[in-house]
């Protein structure tokens, strides 16, 4: 069914073609073409309801696309011969609501998938987990349960949990939107370090400052379409589309 792909010199980390997604009668994504190159950091911005979270959730097929193609490092993830779990373990995901496992300690949260999916030994998984917790500055919380941590700490543990799987791509779904303002900085700092370290990242965010500083490219979405995309200084300072200008004015006025 799939025709031989047109030869591309470098395979995109994420390559989405003509993607649509309907929830019942409601068409949330109306034909999206979207790419993220290896080591690129792409921030997706736009008003709520624009479909940006849905687009992100399609990348690891937490959301089932209605039509279109999604290639991860050249592999069609909707092909039934693709091992979806193997693709997913190479894509780390961070959620707005953290979604730590409340019945496991911080350390066990970071270990469980390493044990079950990568089949690492307990010792190795623990070693990796401690290194990752160290990186997000939470070594001393290893034995605490998530309910004892602040939102910002929980989100950093969630990032450590994803990184422990040695992902090649990281997805962030409004990772700071559920946090108290004073806790946002720590999480953004971790994301900033990650970007500087060369991680491929797709970041759905409302943090314009972060997008301006960290993104290689910013994509503006509205009403299920990609309206405009470009380097942050161009898209955020001198957008060409009226819809983008309107959105940025509204954000600035807040």
């Amino acid at each position, binding site marked *: 069914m799939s025709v031989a792909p047109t030869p591309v010199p470098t395979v995109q980390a994420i390559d989405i073609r003509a993607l649509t997604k309907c929830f019942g009668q409601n068409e949330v994504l109306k034909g999206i073409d979207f790419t993220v190159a290896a080591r690129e950091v792409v921030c997706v911005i736009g008003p709520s309801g624009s479909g940006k979270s849905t687009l992100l959730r399609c990348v*690891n097929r*937490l959301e089932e696309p209605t039509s279109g193609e999604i290639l991860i490092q050249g592999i069609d993830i909707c092909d039934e011969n693709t091992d979806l*779990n*193997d693709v*997913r*373990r*190479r*894509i*780390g*995901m961070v*959620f707005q*609501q953290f*979604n*730590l*496992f*409340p*019945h496991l300690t911080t350390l066990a949260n970071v270990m*469980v*998938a390493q044990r*079950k*999916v990568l089949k690492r030994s307990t010792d190795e998984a623990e070693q990796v987990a401690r290194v990752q917790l160290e990186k997000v500055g939470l070594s001393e919380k290893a034995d605490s349960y998530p309910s004892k941590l602040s939102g910002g700490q929980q989100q950093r543990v*969630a990032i450590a*949990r*994803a990184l422990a*799987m040695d992902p090649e791509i990281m997805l962030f779904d409004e990772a700071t939107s559920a946090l108290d303002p004073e806790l946002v900085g720590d999480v953004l700092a971790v994301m900033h370090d990650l970007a500087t370290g060369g991680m491929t990242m797709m970041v759905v965010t409302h943090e314009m400052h972060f997008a301006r500083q960290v993104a290689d490219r910013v994509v503006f979405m509205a009403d299920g379409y990609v309206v405009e995309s470009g380097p942050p200084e161009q898209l955020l300072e001198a957008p060409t589309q009226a819809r983008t200008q309107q959105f940025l004015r509204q954000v600035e006025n807040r």
Partner: protein
Amino acid sequence: MSRQRRNLILQWLAFFAGIGVVVAFLALTVEWSSLHRLFFDWAVFKDQFPNMITEGIRNTLVYTSIGFGGGLVFGLIAALMRRSSVPPARAAALAYVDVMRSLPALLVILIIGFGLPLAFGENLPSWANSNFAAGGFALAMVAGAYMAETIRAGLEAVPKGQTEAARSLGMKSGQTTVTIVLPQAFRIIIPPLTNEFILLLKDSSLISVLGIVVGQRELTTIGRQVSNSSGNYTPLIAAALCYICVTLPLTFLVRRLERRANAGSR
């Protein structure tokens, strides 16, 4: 204030007047001497022990445990099947739950308790051809249907984000259920499951209709058999006391578990 107080006093007066009427009625109409002789005969009461404990309570707990353990397995399987993406699996689980819950437990116990030994009697090893096996299996079938709904409610109470987080890490559906969802679901349903245990402990009395052999009798069976043979109902009172000794502490435990669960969620 004073009006409230007057109302309170009136309520107390009405309460005591009501009790007085009932006591007077009972004192005049009940045949106290025969009641005392047939239900509260101290000598007969003493004779029930220690057998009422060593055979009765022990076997009540054995039947209840078999029924609860088996029910937990049946309930878990049915609950997971009801969440399956395979329609026939869902239908089968639903049929089991709905049919079992529409039948009186007593009837299920009669059918399975008499039917199972008849159907397999010759081919079963001796341990499986006992009152314990037939009665316990019948109780498990009934309990499983109720527990399936409890477990399903627990599974549904675990936020969807938990499954998404586990799947996004590459965990398989089964791994996610076993390591992430079930442990959280069971924590949620410990109080209702303890309640099911208490209900089952009392329902285990129903297997007394099966004609239980000595040694495998539970509290109610012993109470009935001894009453019938001695013409005195005191053994029933002894059995009742034994039930209370076991269930009341469990009831308190449930209340504490529920209070703690409610406090934890805030």
